[in-house]
């Protein structure tokens, strides 16, 4: 992409090569006209012809050539048209006035025209540079990683200066990291890296040189500095080597470099912030996990170990009732330990990436399997299930979805008094199935509605034991199925868990099942 301003500059450059002949031809034509007309018209008209020629030359030629041609025009007027013809003798002093006037007007026209022309050109260039700068800033601002920013910077610089650009990124330890090239074939990259290293080593000296306004050949690389430290080394090799000799272009490039350096520093900074944040998060999870492992695994282990050693060492002194109590506690605590380990394992598996084996199943069957697991503990709690008759089968992993029901029911039993009921409802809503599980306990504390799904979160209820992973597992499973799960307090008291699961397509047609073969 070549800018308009740049195009104009190049056009006139090409013209300047021919401006001397143009000026010569214009002066020659004017002289010829003057010689032809000098006997026919008044001398002032002849002067006008030369002024016209001067104007034409100053519009299209270099300043020096234009002035030279203006002088040549006046000389030709003096020699050929001022009487006596074909001599530099001044016959009448009144011609002196016209000669001086012509000379002055010629020079003024030339100077003014040239000035206007260069002002226009500069305005165009400025406009173009502003546009480039804006474009660079805009494209850099959307970059989120350092390599992307460097690549954008290299491409944009390459387009503006029609140059081959290499950017070597410098990491926080002030050593060279990745590189970005605009040219397809980075010839002898080793040498370039060495050069970049040399520039990096000399960055302070170079920065000083730049600050003192010294010119540096950018083909040999410059450091991009932000907040006192080099973030990258830039190499720029324009196809037209003269371009970087223009101080205006150099200033422009410096402005671009400042922006690039700032952008790279910004991206790097935000990446560092993000990394720190996720590290804090990971650290928090790790701590919670350690806490869970040390507390929730060690407590039942302590009970088991304690009970077992008591049985070993004090067997003779224990009555059969105490012995039975100890054995019962070993069994209960082992079961609790098993639950904790299962939850930790399940969460780890889900964290590592859910591998759901989805198949079409009736929801009723999954709910039934979950309820079956609670035969004993659920006996004192009336459970009412209502599954809409028109509910289609859903495409889910039944083992995982059963776990969701088990965990929510377990939760309900932990946090609600015995004898209170539980209701399970399921109905269809468009492409989804809505399942709600409601208990009649004291409900959730305000603010806990979303926190209950966090890993290692535990309700404030006294005596509630567990790792605090049950509902986090539910959320992971439901999300893995492309669904949502939320908790709220039901109107009339009690907690309400609401799931929305996609049906997952068109259920298999169940009308065409062949009858069994009778044997």
């Amino acid at each position, binding site marked *: 992409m070549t800018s308009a301003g740049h195009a104009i500059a190049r056009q006139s450059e090409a013209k300047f090569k021919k401006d001397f002949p143009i000026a010569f031809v214009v002066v020659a034509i004017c002289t010829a006209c003057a010689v032809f007309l000098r006997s026919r018209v008044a001398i002032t008209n002849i002067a006008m012809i030369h002024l016209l020629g001067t104007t034409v030359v100053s519009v299209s030629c270099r300043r020096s050539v234009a002035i030279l041609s203006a002088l040549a025009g006046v000389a030709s007027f003096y020699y050929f048209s001022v009487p006596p013809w074909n001599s530099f003798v001044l016959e009448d002093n009144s011609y002196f006035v016209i000669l001086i006037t012509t000379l002055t007007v010629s020079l003024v026209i030339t100077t003014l025209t040239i000035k206007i022309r260069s002002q226009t050109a500069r305005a165009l260039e400025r406009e173009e540079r502003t546009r480039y700068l804006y474009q660079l800033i805009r494209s850099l601002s959307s970059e989120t990683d350092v390599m992307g920013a460097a690549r954008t910077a290299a491409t944009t610089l390459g387009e503006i200066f029609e140059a081959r650009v290499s950017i070597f990124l410098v990491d926080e330890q002030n050593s060279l990291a990745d590189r970005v090239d605009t040219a397809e074939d980075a010839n002898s990259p080793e040498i370039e890296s060495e050069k970049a290293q040399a520039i990096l080593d000399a960055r302070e000296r170079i920065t000083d040189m730049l600050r003192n306004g010294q010119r540096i050949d950018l083909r040999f690389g410059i450091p991009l500095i932000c907040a006192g430290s080099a973030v990258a080394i830039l190499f720029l090799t324009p196809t037209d080597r003269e371009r970087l000799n223009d101080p205006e272009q150099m200033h422009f490039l410096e402005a671009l470099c400042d922006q690039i350096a700032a952008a790279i520093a910004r991206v790097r900074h935000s990446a560092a912030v993000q990394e720190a944040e996720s590290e804090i998060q990971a650290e928090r999870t790790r701590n919670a996990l350690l806490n869970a492992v040390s507390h929730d695994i060690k407590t039942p282990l302590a009970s088991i170990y304690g009970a077992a050693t008591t049985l070993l060492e004090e067997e003779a002194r224990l009555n059969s009732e105490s012995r039975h109590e100890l054995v019962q506690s070993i*069994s209960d605590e*082992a079961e609790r330990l*098993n639950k904790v380990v*299962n939850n930790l*394992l*399940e969460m780890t*598996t889900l964290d590592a990436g859910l591998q759901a*084996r989805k*198949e*079409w*199943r*009736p929801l*009723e*069957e*999954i*709910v*039934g*399997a979950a*309820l*079956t697991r609670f035969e004993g503990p659920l006996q004192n709690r009336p*459970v009412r*299930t209502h*599954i809409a008759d028109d509910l289609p*089968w859903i495409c889910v*992993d*039944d*083992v995982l979805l*059963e776990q969701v029901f088990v965990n929510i029911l377990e939760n309900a039993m932990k946090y609600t008094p015995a004898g209170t009921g539980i209701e399970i409802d399921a109905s269809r809503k468009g492409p989804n199935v809505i399942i709600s599980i409601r208990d009649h306990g004291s409900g959730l504390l305000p603010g806990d509605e979303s926190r209950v799904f966090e890993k290692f979160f535990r309700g404030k209820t006294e005596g509630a034991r567990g790792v605090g992973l049950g509902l986090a597992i539910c959320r992971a499973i439901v999300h893995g199925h492309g669904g949502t799960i939320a908790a709220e307090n039901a109107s009339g008291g009690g907690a309400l868990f609401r799931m929305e699961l996609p049906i997952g397509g068109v259920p*298999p047609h*169940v009308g065409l*099942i*062949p*009858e*069994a*073969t*009778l044997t």
Partner: protein
Amino acid sequence: MNDNAPEFRSDLLLIEDDPEIRKFLRTTLSAEGYRLQEATTVSEGIERATRRPPDAIILDLGLPDADGTEVIRRVREWNRTLPIIVLSVRARERDKIVALDAGADDFVNKPFAVGELLARLRVALRRNTAISENTQNSIFRTGDLEVDLAKRRVTRDGKEVHLTRTEYKLLQILILHADMVLTHSQLLNEVWGPNNEDQSHYVRVYMGQLRLKLEVDPARPRYLRTEPGVGYRLNTR
């Protein structure tokens, strides 16, 4: 039924590599009157099972030298009825299905209560002697359910229940394997014949219909239990 001692002193082969689990099973099973052989690897297990065939095998799937399923395959090459009960870890449903389809009779999830293992063991051993303790003179009874296998008549709470041919066939297979788990593909194969193994929704549809006809609360089945990820079990306990 838990205090029923085995009617005869059965020989068991326990293939398990963990010494602690072997120790407590040895204690428990001996106390229950079983005679026990032990093996710690697949190759040792196969060798012992071949040299002195036991009445049942208790098999851990995670053995050091090979997958425990190998024992099932090798044993089934020469004996189709020897009961095999697999000790497995929950959340590895795939392994259970593979073991069951290879010919294992049932599985028990680790960690397990001893009562659970003993019950499964009794059911598996009984299969070799009678169809089921619930079956007398071709009549199968459990709870309020009664099935006359000779007359193909099903009653619930004294009232006759009409089943379609397929429903009856499915129920019949479940009764013949009462209290034992059956995988989807085993049921498909038994009811619809081979070449239907990827049509597991057939079974689900008919199981749903059977529950509607036989269960008081189909959403909380008492008899027709689902083993999530594995299959179904007719529960008579």
